[in-house]
């Protein structure tokens, strides 16, 4: 079974690409086949973090149809089992992706034969980022323990939520309801909560279905650039508050300690976890990887258990 983890977060510079590469490399070391996909379209640089030159093939070759199968655009990295699908050679205007192209990419990603697929997303909450984030039933949210970043994370969660809601609504023919309520989406106070309320008033029978669908999405949280003077329980508090006030489930995966050598590694274009394997940050990342890989086993065994019943 393939696990897809889109990795996003509202703010730029919180370390999405760094975490993507590090997690990818560490999971690959467990013997799993992993691909990291650079979906920060128009600003891609995963290859640099992996210490590689910009690969010739990538999403560009898939979109211009020189390569038919997305799998064949994956290039090996210096780490065995870890592959990269780059977007560095895409056209200058790739950031404004056509809707059809986006669907094509998402569709192809879902079919990739890897154990783990990590999607490195761009900052912000534009539709591309949101739709890539919703490729899977789960996503990792990277955040730094600063007010600005936490603020952006909530905004990100809320917009993902809203996008998800719209997806569900379309699928279940709620579309007309949305239209008939003529929601003013430009009003800042229009929140998923309000929309649910409105839909419920229209169609109470669908209430449970709606909640279940939203509840199926699983957010995972990582606090990056964590410094010692910050309350270590912040992540758990964040998780509890989100679980309480949103319908989806939230799991805090861990803090990744701040280390100035991470910047050094980026500068020298080498992989941090290779250059500094015995640092606190690396230990933190390993713990997170354990949680991610355990998650899979747990869910698989749970599924088997239910199937038996």
């Amino acid at each position, binding site marked *: 079974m393939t696990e897809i983890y889109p990795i996003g977060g509202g703010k730029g510079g919180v370390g999405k690409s760094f975490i993507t590469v590090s997690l990818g490399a560490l999971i690959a070391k467990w013997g799993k086949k992993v691909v990291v996909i650079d979906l920060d379209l128009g600003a891609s640089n995963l290859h640099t973090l992996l210490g590689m030159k910009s690969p010739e093939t990538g999403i560009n070759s898939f979109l211009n149809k020189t390569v038919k199968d997305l799998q064949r655009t994956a290039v090996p990295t210096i780490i065995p089992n870890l592959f990269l699908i780059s977007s560095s050679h895409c056209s200058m205007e790739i950031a404004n992706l056509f809707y059809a192209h986006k669907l094509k990419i998402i569709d192809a990603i879902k079919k990739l034969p890897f154990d783990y697929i990590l999607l490195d997303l761009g900052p912000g909450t534009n539709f591309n980022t949101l739709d890539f984030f919703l490729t899977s039933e789960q996503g990792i949210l990277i955040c730094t323990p600063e*007010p600005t970043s936490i603020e952006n994370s909530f905004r990100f969660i809320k917009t993902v939520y809203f996008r998800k809601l719209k997806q569900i609504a379309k699928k279940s023919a709620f579309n007309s309801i949305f239209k008939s309520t003529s929601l003013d989406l430009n009003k800042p106070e229009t929140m998923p909560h309000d929309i649910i309320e409105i839909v419920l008033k229209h169609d109470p029978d669908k209430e449970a279905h709606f909640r279940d669908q939203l509840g199926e999405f699983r957010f995972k949280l990582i606090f990056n650039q964590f410094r010692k003077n910050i309350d270590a329980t912040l992540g758990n*508090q964040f998780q509890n508050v989100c679980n309480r006030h949103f319908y989806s489930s939230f799991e805090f995966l861990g803090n990744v300690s701040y280390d100035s050598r991470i910047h050094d590694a980026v500068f020298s274009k080498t992989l941090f976890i290779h250059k500094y394997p015995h640092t606190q940050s690396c230990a933190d990342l390993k713990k997170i990887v354990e949680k991610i890989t355990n998650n899979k086993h747990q869910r698989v065994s749970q599924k088997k258990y239910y199937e038996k019943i």
Partner: protein
Amino acid sequence: MKKFEGLNYYEILKIPANSSYFEIKRAYKDALSLYDEDSLVTYALLSKAERNEILNEIENAYWTLIDEKKRTAYDMMLVDSGQMEAATTSREKLNKSVPISSTPVILNENQLYSRVREKMATEEIKKLSDEILSGERLSGNDLKKLREAAGINIQELNYITKISGSVLNAIEEDRLEALPPDLYLRNFLKSYAQILQIDPQKVVDRYFKTILLAQKKDTSDPH
């Protein structure tokens, strides 16, 4: 956004139904700090209206659960409506062991200060405090008189200053042998004076003079 819809007071405070006063108090404080408008975790999550609604619910939950009568009535309501089993509410044993000092007087510091300010402004009290500070020395009994006149009890003083009850008593009763070391005493007296809103330095100076005098007496008197 879910708020606290459909949650009972125990669920809002995240405590089991047989929680003791201590647990309720702690849970309440935790909840208040989590939903405070300066809380790093929630400040960006909630709108002002949502925050107020949530804080309101927390207050309701707290004031119901720390009041024995209200809590019993609330529990019965939960049991009657099938939200809770009768057995889970039995907490007689837990409550018996609660010492007096933990009586649920949660005080708002600002409230206390404004109460004292009002009192201190009255002619009677003004006269009393001026009288006490006019002398060259003052005793613990003077402080006690002023405290009582301002309508503050020892538990409130203990709650706000965090000075233990036994030390407060020793200060008020001028029991030299039970007083803490000078450095601590100085600070305790300052906090005490701040609550009464009288000049801390004057109180410290005068109180220490009293102690010195008493110590001299002690040494000159072989008993």
